[in-house]
């Protein structure tokens, strides 16, 4: 740290990268405007993207408890930024300036004998604490049986396979649903036993527990005290059993699962009680394992069609709601269903359980209504066409993938606590979390995202899960910060590690303050346009969830224009004079692509798809987010090694193979000539082996991406003129369209049939507006 600060910041890029690698943090501004007024004029808020559990191979956790500031309202963790008086064995909290005694265990510290948490390289440190009983991980499968035979079979196989991937002591449970909901008891010999619930009736948690025989009062009443304690695990274990004990049973049980037997007449959808099934799953865990890491994994093959949470009726002639219907306020069930799932999501989140949704169907499945279940609990959302696709199978398998040390890449029940130095307040967070409503002196009244708190709960997270956290500079203009003063932020993440250990990761960062009036160039240079784009995008997407699309776009545009006005160099009313410094140069382009992205544009997307995209956008790290905003395009040709090319229609050339990664899709596009060659079979001729290699290269690269990404992207292999080429054509900047005639018939790129504006036009307008004295 220190070096970077001292250094002349040869490049801020390096600094940013270093920080990201070490702390998992990217700030929009790396030098902070020192007053509230100036900060608001920066347009892009002071904010960061935090990846709380960023994988750190070089960070072995320490086996002791963190030392906390003794001030009850602070409780910040001892960190390298603290002033330490080694003689007096005192340390001063850098957030509240409280002076604290070191605990007895630290009696031996000195300048040369520092605990890890005081060393600068440990600005991020992880503690393992031995607190409370360790509870095994819990996986509760909630399986839709209204599937086609093939789908069900595939799903059953995936589920059976997954048993071998779980930690042996993990508890598993099974709920199946169709017209009814069945909670399976897993420990039965000779007879398989399940509790059945009507799919149309919502039940309170208490009712569910009563009906499952999980209510405790009844037991002690009859059996007396002594038995109570041993009895309890037995009860819950009827439905949740250690994998190693029942994997045979469960494998058989899954094997015997039948399609929902209730007849579905012509012209009807099967009756699917997803709402009740989830409700029961939540109720079951709530009653038996509150505040324990648990995953409810919902596998559904269609929309909920009855009971609470129904999204569409069972008449096939009534299609499921579209954006059009929603705009016309014509989606009958949407509000009620959403409310149902929100309630569930909140309950589940409150208990630290997450809900995954694996929805595989050709039509929509109600993700729009159910999205909060995954969004609020940190659960996964996977959307596919069928359970019988590698997209689902591999994605699902990847849920259980393990890290470098053989540990699951999942953590549970995280509690993120953010502390700031006095000049800053916390405005909110956007990510897969819920507020814990921890009010405090560092909580701002202005909310951005989920605000009003300094703590959030993230029920499930992995090494990529990234939250956007927004701050507000509250220092008043007339109270200047002394030269060299630094603002600090501490992120304390307590979570249940996949090994069931309780861990605490603490990241403490500091940034310099600068007076925007005198040192604007410092601030400008320290702008992280990538982070800023993503942070603005999250705000935009967050708004889009509740506001009309056009309003969000207008807001985004205005912010962009204001930013350009603030940081652009231009002569008034002369668009041609407009210039942006390097640290801002890409930003408008990001925004251009963001405007066209499915996160903000619902055209051509179903409500489910929009929800799906937004879900992932709100939790991926910066790199992935950027890919989502502006897909990456690589070109393969005989003219040279593979190279990234502009995401522009001009990049589409006949003798190129293009590989586009939009995060959700991997598209391989063969140019016209290449496609012809391939049809002619040149790749099979020994003398054209190089062509074969050329064809193979993008496939290998794609494979690499497919191997690592979660969820697995849709893999599209197409060629010039292919129907699936639309995936590419809809993403590239339409620099050549049927409107700009000059492009016709030329060899440079392919025209796109669209009325969308191209980046060029967009920039022209931007410049014009930025320099306009009218605004």
């Amino acid at each position: 740290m220190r070096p970077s600060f001292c250094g002349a910041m040869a490049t801020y890029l390096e600094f940013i990268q270093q920080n990201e690698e070490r702390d998992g943090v990217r700030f929009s501004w790396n030098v902070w405007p020192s007053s509230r007024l100036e900060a608001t004029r920066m347009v892009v808020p002071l904010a960061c993207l935090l990846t709380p559990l960023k994988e750190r191979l070089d960070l072995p956790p320490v086996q002791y408890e963190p030392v906390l500031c003794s001030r009850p309202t602070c409780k910040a963790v001892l960190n390298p930024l603290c002033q330490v008086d080694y003689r007096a064995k005192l340390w001063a909290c850098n957030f509240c300036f409280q002076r604290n005694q070191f605990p007895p265990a630290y009696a031996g510290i000195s300048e040369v004998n520092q605990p890890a948490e005081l060393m600068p390289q440990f600005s991020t440190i992880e503690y393992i604490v031995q607190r409370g009983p360790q509870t095994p991980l819990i996986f509760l499968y909630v399986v839709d049986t209204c599937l086609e035979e093939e789908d069900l079979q595939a799903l059953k196989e995936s589920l059976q396979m997954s048993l071998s991937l779980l930690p042996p002591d993990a508890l598993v449970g099974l709920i199946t649903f169709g017209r009814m909901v069945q909670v399976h008891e897993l420990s039965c010999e000779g007879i398989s036993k399940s509790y059945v619930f009507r799919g149309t009736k919502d039940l309170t948690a208490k009712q569910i527990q009563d009906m499952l025989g999980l209510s405790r009062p009844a037991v002690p009443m009859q059996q007396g005290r002594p038995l109570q304690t041993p009895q309890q695990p037995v009860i819950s274990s009827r439905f949740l059993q250690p994998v190693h004990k029942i994997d045979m049973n469960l494998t058989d049980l899954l094997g015997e699962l039948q399609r929902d037997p209730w007849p579905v007449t012509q012209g009807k959808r099967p009756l699917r009680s997803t709402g009740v099934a989830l409700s029961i799953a939540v109720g079951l865990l709530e009653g038996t394992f509150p505040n324990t890491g648990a995953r409810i994994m919902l596998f559904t093959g269609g929309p909920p069609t009855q009971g609470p949470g129904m999204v569409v009726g069972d008449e096939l002639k009534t299609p499921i709601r579209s954006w059009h219907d929603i705009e016309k306020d014509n989606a009958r069930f949407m509000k009620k269903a959403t409310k149902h799932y929100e309630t569930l999501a909140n309950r589940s989140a409150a208990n630290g359980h997450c809900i995954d949704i694996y929805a595989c169907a050709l039509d929509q499945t109600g993700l729009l209504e159910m999205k909060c279940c995954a969004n609020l609990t940190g659960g996964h959302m996977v959307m596919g066409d069928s359970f019988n696709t590698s997209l689902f199978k591999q994605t699902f398998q990847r849920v259980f993938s393990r890290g470098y040390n053989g540990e699951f890449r999942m953590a549970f029940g995280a509690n993120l606590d953010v502390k700031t130095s006095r000049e800053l307040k916390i405005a909110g967070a956007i990510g897969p979390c819920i507020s814990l409503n921890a009010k405090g002196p560092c909580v701002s009244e202005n909310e951005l995202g989920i605000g009003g708190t300094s703590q959030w709960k993230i029920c499930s997270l992995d090494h990529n899960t990234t939250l956007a956290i927004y701050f507000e500079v509250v220092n008043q203009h007339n109270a200047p910060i002394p030269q060299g003063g630094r603002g600090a932020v501490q992120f304390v993440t307590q979570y249940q590690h996949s090994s069931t250990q309780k861990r605490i990761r603490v990241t403490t960062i500091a940034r310099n303050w600068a007076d925007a009036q005198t040192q604007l160039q410092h601030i400008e240079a320290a702008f992280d346009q990538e982070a800023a784009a993503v942070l603005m995008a999250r705000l935009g997407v967050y708004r889009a969830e509740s506001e009309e699309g056009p309003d969000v776009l207008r807001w985004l545009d205005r912010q962009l224009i204001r930013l350009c006005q603030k940081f652009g160099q231009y002569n008034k009313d002369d668009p041609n004079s407009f210039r942006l410094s390097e640290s801002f140069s890409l930003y408008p382009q990001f925004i251009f692509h963001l405007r066209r992205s499915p996160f903000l544009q619902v055209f051509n997307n179903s409500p489910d798809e929009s929800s799906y995209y937004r879900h992932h956008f709100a939790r991926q790290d910066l790199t992935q987010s950027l890919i989502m905003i502006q897909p990456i395009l690589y070109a393969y040709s005989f003219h040279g090694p593979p190279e990234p090319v502009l995401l522009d229609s001009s990049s589409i050339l006949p003798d190129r193979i293009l590989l586009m990664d939009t995060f959700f899709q991997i598209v391989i596009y063969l140019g016209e000539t290449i496609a012809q060659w391939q049809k002619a079979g040149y790749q099979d001729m020994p003398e054209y082996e190089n062509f074969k290699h050329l064809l193979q290269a993008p496939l290998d690269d794609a494979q690499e991406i497919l191997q690592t990404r979660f969820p697995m992207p849709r893999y599209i292999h197409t060629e010039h003129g292919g129907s699936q080429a639309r995936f590419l054509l809809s993403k590239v900047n339409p620099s050549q369209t049927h409107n700009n005639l000059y492009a016709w018939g030329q060899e440079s790129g392919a025209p796109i049939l669209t009325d969308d504006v191209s980046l060029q036009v967009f920039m022209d307008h931007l410049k014009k507006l930025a320099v306009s004295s009218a605004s």
Partner: protein
Amino acid sequence: MSVNQQAHTGPPYGQPQPGYQGYQQPAYGGQSLPGVPQAQYGAYNGPVPGYQQPVPPQGSLRAPPTSGAPPPASGASHPSGHLAYSQFEHGDVQNGIPASAAPMQRPPASQPFLPGSAPTPVSQIPTFQQYGAPPASVQQLRNHMAGMTIGGTAASAPPPAGLGYGVGPSSYPPTTGAPRPPAMPGPPLPGQTVAGPPSSQPNHVSSPPPPSTMAGLHPGPPMSGLHGPPPPTHPPQPGYQMQQNGSFGQMRGPPPNYGGAYPGAPNYGSPPGPPPPPKRLDPDSIPSPQLNELPPQQKPRHRIDPDAIPSPIQVIEDDRNNRGSEPFVTGVRGQVPPLVTTNFLVKDQGNASPRYIRCTSYNIPCTSDMAKQSQVPLAAVIKPLAALPPEETVPYLVDHGESGPVRCNRCKAYMCPFMQFIEGGRRFQCCFCSCVTEVPPHYFQHLDHTGKRVDFYDRPELSLGSYEFLATVDYCKNNKFPSPPAFIFMIDVSYNAVKSGLVRLICEELKSLLDYLPREGNMEESAIRVGFVTYNKVLHFYNVKSSLAQPQMMVVSDVADMFVPLLDGFLVNVNESRTVIASLLDQIPEMFADTRETETVFAPVIQAGLEALKAAECAGKLFIFHTSLPIAEAPGKLKNRDDRKLINTDKEKTLFQPQTSFYNNLAKDCVAQGCCVDLFLFPNQYLDVATLGVVPYQTGGSIFKYAYFQLETDQYRFLNDLRRDVQKEVGFDAVMRVRTSTGIRATDFFGAFYMSNTTDVEMAGLDCDKTITVEFKHDDKLSEDSGALLQCALLYTSCAGQRRLRIHNLSLNCCTQLADLYRNCETDTLINYLAKYAYRGVLSSPVKTVRDALINQCAQILACYRKNCASPSSAGQLILPECMKLLPVYLNCVLKSDVLQPGPEVTTDDRAYVRQLVTSMDVAETNVFFYPRLLPLTKADVDSDSLPAAIRNSEERLSKGDIYLLENGLNIFVWVGVNVQQGLIQNLFGVSSFSQISNALSTLPVLENPFSKKVRSIVDMLQGQRSRYMKLIIVKQEDKLEMLFKHFLVEDKSLSGGASYVDFLCHMHKEIRQLLS
């Protein structure tokens, strides 16, 4: 009629006819009254002859009296009573007379009671003495009686004729039977109930009259003697007095006094002056109005000779002898069938067999005024699916193809033998509503010269009383042919059920029982599918689909809103899913072996079954095995509201009513789906049968109750009931409608069913034991010519899922004379109706009101008879119609039954249970239920198949040295006297002494000796006759259990305050006289 009558005539009283004859004379002559009596006899004789002669002509009379016997007897018969019987034949007379005769005779018993005086009484002394012996101790008497009974009764028969007639004879010989001449008020009308003449027993005449004489007489011929001798001297009185004295028991001490006081009484009897020793009079007098004042209280002590009052045993025996040999051919309109206790074959020649329909009367008054006047309820007891003995053919199935059965256009009556074809067969006129309907072309047939269709004998619907039509799709719900029905077994697995071993027992039994589901005709396997549910506070459904490796259990805890969690695999074919089912039944007891759940639900269980049937779109039956009051939180939850303090208050009725209407609504839903519920209860305490029974009751199901169920003692009984219940023939989703000739209309229905309108009886299920009693009322006039027709049409789904119509037709006569009505009644059926009527009444009225109403109605019936059909006679005489002479005794039994007069040991549940049980009983069942069968086992002939002759239900009839069996359709008691020979005890119980007999036995030990075999075969035979397996209870004399046993000795006074037969008869007599005056 005539036919019947003749049949009746046979052996009136006396069991053995021969006996009569023999006795009569000899007895009298020889034994009894040496001097005096004879003289009397003589006197009688005179008259008798007279009667007899007239009699024959009158033939019409039903008087059953021994046919042959009487006449001869006649002469001898003077003995009064008995003779009278013989004469009865003459008709009503018999009733009146004979009855008196029998009763009149004072049983020896009486004497003993009589103080010293007894002997004094006139000539009779001797007689008395004979009896006198008994006087010593009551017991002795009893023994006597016991011993005598048979003989006695038998003997008695003959005399009546003599007596009754005898008396009158002289004077009235010509007139019908009017027996006693002068004395009697008016000479009794011909056969009709002459009050005076102690005509056969029928008359329970209580008349006080010349007891003395009578008494004396009886004595003479110990057995038979009773009858004959009495009256001789005092023709008129004799009869009466005899009866009174004898039958009604002469008072011991008091008598004398009364006698004095009563002297007047005798007057009534007629023979005031006569010898009647004042003393005897007393008791009898009760009936007589005048006596009323004093007598009532005093009488209590009196004893009237039980042998002298109408004896059910005698009547049954007579009917059996007279009518058991010839088949009952149904071709003739209005025939009275043999009694239910008689074994007979039926030949269907156009009317439904009495096994299907029995009526209270086979001759219906033409007008409603007449009907009202008589107060005789017109009712038919219908058992549409009754099982037939193997010798009789089941109704033919007629298939008219797609056009369905031919029906009247207007009233929709089905084609039947009474339809009149006209216009050469092109049309037919409806026998019910007279509407003329075109004969459909495919059904056309020419008529022969008598107007009969040529194919008359080829078509069951034209020639038989009972037949079936194959229903077309129009007769099906939703216009869809039904699926085969399903049986769902629903087993309570709460703590009690598991602990008592019940769950294991049921599961074990089901494994084999499932192979015996009802099958249609000759089908290879049953079409019925089965399903299984267990429950306590929650329900467990089982998927036993054949493709599963192991059964699946599905728990439904949401009892508030019941549903069926699975469709496929719940109802399965037994053969296909055999292994899965077996595995399930093995596991159920294991799974719940450690249960601690004590609470149960009930309504949701029914709902579950109902929903399952709905989902499967079929009708069916639920077999629910339940142990406790459903107090778990759920719909239909009940609270313990048992409160004995309510008994005898206006609120008593609430004990019979369901505590919530929930079950009524549920029942309605069940009926709509064809979901019949059979309930097996195993309570250890109150579980509110009145409420739990609502659904079984309204869906046509049955309730079986095993209080304090214990595996060792009760399992056999339960398993037998279960087996029978599962296997028996049953129809589903049934609707029954009874059509009648214009003029009467079915107005009221009793039984286990539901009615959504006023005409259609709907039953989710109807088995071969279920009976519906239908009451008819006039809404117009009937004509004697055309008679009255009934057509009972039952639409149902057979056990193979075939939709069918079963039709029963019955033609009845109509009359303008009340006498005809009374001559064609059937008391057993009447009691069946009255009991059901009363048992329904307790739901809405205080029990006392119900009882009073019953007594009142019967009194009116009898009074009407007395007034209109019996010959004028002293008001003091009780004259009963022959056909109804048992009405008082049976009525008393009804009044004393647990429902109407509960003893302290009878629980509320028992009463509710019995109440519902009786409501769907047929005539044979009510008969034995109210008047149990008591068989002296030690008298059984080890070498023959026959049963020992039954004896009357009175403690007096039991001998210390014998073993008896008593059965009432629910229980079998084996009563062992203290003095039974050790050998017998050893043979029957396998223990060496009386004291070693365990009354915990629930079956008789299987021992290889003739006596044991015989007794067991008797027990088995009785069990075979009843629809429920009876509980066997061993009762040792003077043991605690004897109290329970005595409760069933229905002729005795009961502990709960029920009157003895004799007392009740007196009471009835009083009532009648009040009505008449």
